[in-house]
């Protein structure tokens, strides 16, 4: 815990500064009411009505997010393996190569099916 405590000290200083400057910004600035100013910005035309709750996102973004999860887990599996590679030796290398081949098959499938096209 002694190792982690200083991080919270730095985080506390940072949080204090952020909150303080946002409060100062809210107090120091002028307040002049103007109906048009409070509209969402859209280059001067009346803003497009947005659906309540944020609406829907394109399926593409979910696909990217799922891909990210697959690969992020792969990276996390690679970290402890990389640190102890010298101790694991040939057995660890072969095991990890098999795992990488597994992930690569999914990756190649995704690529072939057009999951990596953003054009």
């Amino acid at each position, binding site marked *: 815990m*002694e*190792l*982690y*405590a*200083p*991080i919270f*000290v*730095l*985080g506390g*200083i*940072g*949080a204090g*500064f*952020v*909150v303080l*400057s*946002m409060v100062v*910004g*809210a107090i*120091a*600035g*002028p*307040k*002049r009411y103007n109906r048009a*100013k*409070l*509209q*969402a*910005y*859209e280059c001067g035309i*009346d*803003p*497009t009505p*947005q659906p309540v709750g*944020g609406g829907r996102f394109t399926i593409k*973004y979910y696909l*990217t997010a799922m*891909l*990210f999860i697959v690969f*992020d887990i792969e*990276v*996390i599996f*690679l*970290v402890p393996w*990389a*640190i*102890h*590679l*010298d101790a694991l*030796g*040939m057995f660890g*290398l072969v095991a990890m*190569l098999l795992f*990488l081949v597994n992930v*690569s098959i999914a*990756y190649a499938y995704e*690529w072939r099916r057009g999951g*990596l*096209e*953003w054009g």
Partner: protein
Amino acid sequence: MTTHPSVHAEAVRLAAEPGFEGFGTDPWWIILIKALVIFVFLMLCVLMMIMADRKVMGRMQQRHGPNRLGPWGLLQSLADGVKLSLKEDLIPRSVDKVVYIAAPMVAAIPAFLAFSVIPVGPEVSMFGVQTRLQLTDLPVAVLLVLATASIGVYGIVLAGWASRSPYPLLGGLRASAQVISYEIAMGLSFIAVFIYSGTLSTSGIVEAQQPIWFAIILFPSFVIYLITMVGETNRLPFDLAEGEGELVGGFMTEYSSMKFTMFFLAEYVNMVTVAAMSVTLFLGGYLAPPPITTFWPGANEGWWPVLWWLAKFAAVMFLFIWLRGSLPRVRYDQLMQLGWKLLIPVQLVWITAVATIRVLRNEGYPPLVTSAVIVVFFLAVLAALLAMSRSAERRQAAEAEERARDARAVHEDPAYGGFPVPPAHAPHYGSSVPAEEPRTAPPAPSGKREEVTGA
């Protein structure tokens, strides 16, 4: 308390893990001084970096850049900060208030945390206390940096979502897709470093670069880290999340005053963090460049390492400005393709090669086997490059054909694929202003046929 002896022994071993003796033993006031110094350093870096950004960009474009406030315009960003805090703190009517106000905090606060594990020097004597020039070090220090970077993404996504406006929403979505895509390549570029250093602690990684920097022996990882670090911080040429030409201000379009400043601050602090990480992981951290230590053995002792660290850090920060001054912004699909189709596969092959060669050498295989493996990897990379260039050629040919087809179609029908005109009668375009009368003249009343003048 009855603890199993082996569990207790394990706890003792962990507490006394090699490499962590100098940490967690500082008195509280030393921790406070270090944290304050890091905070002030980060703020100064941000102010100087904004100024340097504009000055160097100005020089690259044959102009002066800001030079009015203070000597050489050094106080420009300070004046900008004061001006921003005196601006009206606007909250648009349609936003989700709680999330809208929380988003700049979520973006800015984690940005400060990552610097706590960056080593800027070895053990020195500070006010009579022996201490490391590093706030703290963890057995998972590099993961902490990655984690704080991912939390910062939440600030961007929430800002875009809470603004309830098309430009911020698009900017937020783009930023999240971009950052998570480049985070994978970034994480993969660390793996080769971990293989060589055998530890995740930042000071341990720096010490592991004693004879030679990882930037030299793991050059491909270093190059990919430099690319991903630009993508991760949304800087040009990858600044699609806030590309002025297409998205106004991206996810921070609806923000003003200090809330806007917090996003700006977070972006620059993140730049400081990733630059400091590149120095730590690849450029030997606070170690003096190898030629210096040959004729000056004391270069790595006392406070001198801070100088080496600052020099390397400044060089990486300059690289950011240099890239911004010389490269055009990429297209969104090019950005994602670079991340997913080039950086990730290259990294996977590179990690496999590094691991295989290291294990073969450790296990004492004859050099012939090792060199044979190197040749096989080399041939495989060549074959992949050949296949990629051929597929790129095919794609270019297809695109050229499509362009030619479009040109023919435009020739036949000038309105083909023309500029999209918004529907003049759609409800939201006419909510405050009555819809314009159709510009085309109404059909002439029957009777006398009007003469067509062509005017």
